[in-house]
């Protein structure tokens, strides 16, 4: 073998191994993060953590029941606000749209998807908090809901487009009009995919902190109704992690583990089970 060939072969093996190393490093980050959180947060998880209010500053113990409930309330609002708009908008793009408007809507959805979440927070602040003159669960849910819309819309559209046109033609042939065709044939056919997209979008906003900082704000107690500031898991992790108390730090780890667990479990379940049999192939 000539020296040149040896060089080329060595380079081949070296560079290819390096790319493997890159992939390995990236992927191992997830296992490392998960392992480290379990290691640090696992021991502070207890029944109290899920059922008690935060203890007064300086006192040990207490839990995050209000933050967990607060997060659920915020997600419920986000789903109620964001999913219908995204879903119907997606139906419009896939089934009813003309030429110019769908292009514009699609482009805007991608744009809105890329807007930093903190900017969405400013928007919700201007639109909800400023007129009401105080922070509220409603404002936080509104901010998260806006972040849900583009994802649900784009997902719905792409799954509806994947429904074979033979199904549409078949229902027309049976005499159905368009909305019946969409509501009873096309939407059910795409329902798993649409549900997948909606759940993933909600799992994503469940971990959002930035848009909640000045909308839902925070609360050391239960937040009654929808018009009061509320605590939420991501915000309390931020507050506790940057706070000065040792006990807060331990609680932040535990809350981090709960949040990460929720997000990852939702993602894994949704991606493996719901997406089976749909064309939810992102590759």
């Amino acid at each position, binding site marked *: 073998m000539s020296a040149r060939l040896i060089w*080329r072969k060595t*380079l*081949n093996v070296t560079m*290819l191994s390096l*790319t493997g190393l*890159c*992939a390995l*490093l*990236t*992927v191992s980050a*997830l296992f490392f*993060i998960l392992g*480290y*959180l379990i290691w640090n947060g696992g021991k502070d998880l207890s029944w109290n953590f899920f059922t008690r209010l935060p203890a007064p500053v300086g006192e040990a113990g207490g839990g995050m029941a209000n933050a967990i409930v607060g997060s659920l309330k915020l997600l419920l609002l986000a789903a109620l606000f964001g999913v219908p*708009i*995204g879903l*119907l*908008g997606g*139906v*419009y793009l896939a*089934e009813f749209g003309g030429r110019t*408007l*769908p292009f514009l*809507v699609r482009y*805007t959805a*991608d*744009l*809105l998807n*890329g*807007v*930093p*979440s*903190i*900017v969405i*927070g*400013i*928007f919700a602040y201007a639109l909800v908090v400023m007129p009401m003159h105080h*922070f509220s669960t409603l404002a936080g849910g509104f901010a998260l809901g806006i972040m849900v*819309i583009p994802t649900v819309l*784009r997902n719905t559209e792409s799954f509806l487009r994947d429904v074979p046109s033979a199904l549409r033609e078949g229902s027309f042939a049976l005499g159905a*009009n368009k*909305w019946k065709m969409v509501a009873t044939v096309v939407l059910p056919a795409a329902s798993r995919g649409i549900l997948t997209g909606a759940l993933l*979008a909600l799992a*994503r906003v469940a*971990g*959002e*902190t*930035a848009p909640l*900082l000045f909308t839902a*704000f925070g609360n050391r107690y239960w937040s009654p109704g929808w018009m009061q500031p509320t605590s939420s898991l991501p915000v309390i*992790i931020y507050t506790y*992690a*940057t706070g000065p108390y040792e006990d807060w730090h331990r609680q*932040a780890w535990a809350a*981090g583990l709960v949040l*990460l667990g929720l997000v*990852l479990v939702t993602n*894994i379940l949704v*991606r493996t089970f719901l997406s089976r049999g749909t064309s939810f192939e*992102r590759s």
Partner: protein
Amino acid sequence: MATTPNAATPADLAWSPRALLRRMRGADEIAHLITLIAAATLLLITILLVYQLWVLSAEARTKFGWSFFVTKTWDPVAGQFGALPFIYGTLVTSAVALLLAVPLGVGGAIFLAELAPPNLSSSLTFVSDLLAAVPSVIYGLLGVFLLVPIMRTTIQPALKKTLGFLPLFQGPAYGIGFLTAGIVLAIMIVPFVLSVSREVLLAVARDQREAALALGATKWESTWKVVVPAARIGIFGSVFLALARALGETMAVTMVIGNNPKIAASLFSPGYSIAAVLANEFSEATGNLYLSALIELGLVLFLLTFVLNGLARLLIVVTTARGSGALPT
């Protein structure tokens, strides 16, 4: 039903109350209208978003004009607001993040697209997508309690010893600062570079690889000299996309950058970013000018990500011709 609902008869098109009523009686038109309203709501929200940012930042814009972007002082008490330290911090941390994340992400993507067997490739991509789903505040948590101490005791002293002659690696090692924020950001954006680059690489025609191999190229040569160049526009797209993410990333950066509006050449120095100052000061901003200066920062951030995302999508669409529906959520 007497008429086919899908074909508009001339009478349907005529503009009279009765014709309108007849058209609306068809459930199709109602369904059309409802879905149209939903789609238009999205447009409305986006327009309103831009409008609000523009109007609410008016006070700061008229008072400071363009000097807002070149002024270094940020003094809420004296009513002096300059955005330069924040813009600087945002750009520096994002640049560090890109320098680390792009080789890692593109390298990983090459492995997944060119070498790994399909099963391994799809399961690794699955893990990388999960990594992209990890909330930002979790990265911040790990950053504060794990990375910052390591930076302070190990990495920063080591860098100072070996590369300390560069102004980039001088000054006291606090642990927090531009470099730490950049590293955390890098870990956060790698999955985006990886999965988009992988898709772009997979979109390169198979013949290209086979032709290169048939000419006697090694696997690496066919990848590096044929496949990667063919996909380079899309890879640039993935980089812009990741950059847009990095610029707007808030929580993790806020927790490790040091939150000190200061411009320093050293990457060890504490700094501040646009998103971080918004997260820290927005809810406590007193006075209209203060608030409006912060909102102007939000506007800057919005415009930066707007341009980058638009560019990224254009580049990715050009190479894969499949559109942005394939982006990771």
